[in-house]
């Protein structure tokens, strides 16, 4: 039995069903989208203002 949860989007007014995937579970903990992440880290390192409270 696959584990599912439903989410009703407040913004879209639509319902989405999330189904847990064993294939995606195998990717947990791995660094995905490395280039995008590296770009984000570079921006955050340069940030001169703290994150808003």
């Amino acid at each position: 039995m696959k584990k599912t949860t439903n989410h009703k989007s407040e913004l879209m007014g639509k319902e989405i069903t999330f189904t847990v995937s064993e294939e995606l579970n195998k990717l947990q903990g791995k660094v995905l989208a490395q280039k995008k992440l590296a770009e984000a880290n570079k921006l955050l390192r340069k940030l001169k203002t703290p994150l808003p409270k």
Partner: protein
Amino acid sequence: MNYEVYSKIEVSDDFNIFDFISTGKNGDILKRVVFSKTEEVGVYNLALGDVEEDNEMNDHVITDNGDRNKVLATVAAIVEAYTKRFPFRWIIFRGNTEERTRLYRMALGLHLDELSSLYEIWAYKDEQLVPFTKNLKTTAFLIKRKIS
């Protein structure tokens, strides 16, 4: 906002990896949305890409499957669910290209009132964070759920 979304989404148990199928003029394309922890505590990077045959994610591809609004609306719905689960996490995102970042800026600007009711929205500009306003040229965006 009244956009169609892809309503069947696969997800990892930790709620950080999401897959859905984009159906358009180029056929069915598996899309992946990933939230990754950055070096800044509490900030997570949002990446969207296509899943290739080797199950690797290509986050620099331009798919052009003719369903751009539906894909963006689906990503927005995923962000909504994600930030509901993790309301204290900041999400940073940007486009792969200036044009894509401009598209995100236009989408945020177009729906700023609705989005602002749910999120704090900040823009990364000149190495500083400033409140996002319509048409503000920016490098990236940071959002977080408003805590009521």
